[in-house]
């Protein structure tokens, strides 16, 4: 068996581009999924029964589906439902946001609920409005508890972006597999793909641990 590792260096530009798209997709998805999660959590906590059940239904549905299936589904259903052809990246983004927003909604809801009721009551008794109590008392405390969980979601999301390779979004996984198919350098390219993911993911995992140590809830 002879291996030719130079193939990785030859294709460094494409691999870098792929890695950049992986990071870009992660950032963009999170930027959209955090507001999405907040809206869903507020709907769930609102007194309106209809809003509650819509939010609950959305969250439970997308949390209980394999992401790869949601990606395929978005790929085929979106053009039909809206009668427009979407680019693969848009489709990928929609599928990822649907999935991550559902997780974030649960995170936000649990975070807000974890602040004892007495705090809200005390704030109201001090003459704060409901909005003031929420934004000045509850949310600042909840945010500290939410941060570590969002950090964990971030790592999962970073890894899950590899799944959009099935609809030919040219992020790191897809790019590596394309080069593999063109050059027949299977072992070299797949190992390079794993190593690049590792190089990007490992520091993030360590950072998440640090955030957990610093901000995690200690009982």
């Amino acid at each position, binding site marked *: *068996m002879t291996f030719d590792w130079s193939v990785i260096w030859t294709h460094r530009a494409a691999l870098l581009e792929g890695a950049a798209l992986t990071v870009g997709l992660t950032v963009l998805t999170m930027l959209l999924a955090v507001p999405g999660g907040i809206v869903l959590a507020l709907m769930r906590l609102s007194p309106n029964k209809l809003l509650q059940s819509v939010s609950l239904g959305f969250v*439970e*549905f997308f*949390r*209980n*589906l*394999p*992401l*790869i*299936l*949601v990606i*395929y*589904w978005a790929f*085929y*259903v979106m053009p*039909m439902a809206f009668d427009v052809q979407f680019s693969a990246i848009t489709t990928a983004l929609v599928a990822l946001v649907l999935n991550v927003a559902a997780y974030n909604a649960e995170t936000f809801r649990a975070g807000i609920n974890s602040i004892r009721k007495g705090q809200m009551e005390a704030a109201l008794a001090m003459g704060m409005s409901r909005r003031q109590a929420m934004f000045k008392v509850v949310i600042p405390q909840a945010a500290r508890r939410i941060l570590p969980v969002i950090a964990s979601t971030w*790592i999962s999301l970073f*890894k*899950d*972006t*590899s*799944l959009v*390779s*099935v609809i030919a979004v040219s992020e790191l*996984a897809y790019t590596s*597999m394309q080069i*593999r198919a063109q050059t027949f350098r*299977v*072992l070299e390219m*797949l*190992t390079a*793909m*794993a190593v690049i*993911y*590792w190089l*990007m*993911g*490992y520091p*993030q*995992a*360590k950072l998440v641990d640090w955030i957990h140590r610093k901000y995690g809830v200690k009982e």
Partner: protein
Amino acid sequence: MNFDFSPIADNWRFFASGLGMTVLLSIVSAATSLLAGLVIALLRLYGPRWLRPLLVFYIDSMRAIPVLVVLIWIYFAFPIIANVTFPPFWAALVALTLHIAAYAAEVIRAGIESIRPGQTRAALALGMSRAQILRKVLLPQAIVRMLPAFGSILTIAIKDTAIATVIAVPELMHRAETVAGQSYRPVEVFTAVMVAYFCILFPVTRGVDRLYRRFAHLGRS
């Protein structure tokens, strides 16, 4: 828009066998992951000191590399170095176990460490051996506390089996792709399969919640 769900009705046996494969692969890989995770957690807690950095390195690496990459590497690249070929099912089982066991190990370690050290000291003072303490004092309490996490490991396993479609394991997701491609009815097929996955996963997540609520009091100390 007109929908035609007949490809699903016509191929129901094909889908049913895919569903069977999904259930089989997820149960087996969740079980092997828990076993491997238990061994890793125990080695990390009580094993030789030099082994610990290696185990931490393995666990953190699996948190950093996507399961898709592990699957594809095990199926396509590993046979080149090792000169063996796996059938897709076995490659998927190995890759999923490799990936999920890292999570299981963390869950189990956290569970065991959550039992106050005073209990271990008390048991030692009573003359119990380390193995006895683990079996009779720590694990019975820790397992109850770990129940919700075990449930999420099972749901992760079920969801991850869908990714095994990329190495052509004949599970539900792969069957869906096949039928969608042949019948030109991807919307109907993927929607039906979505409902099927939801019907498997929802009861699992709910069931574990209820189970936990019933047994939670056993884990208190």
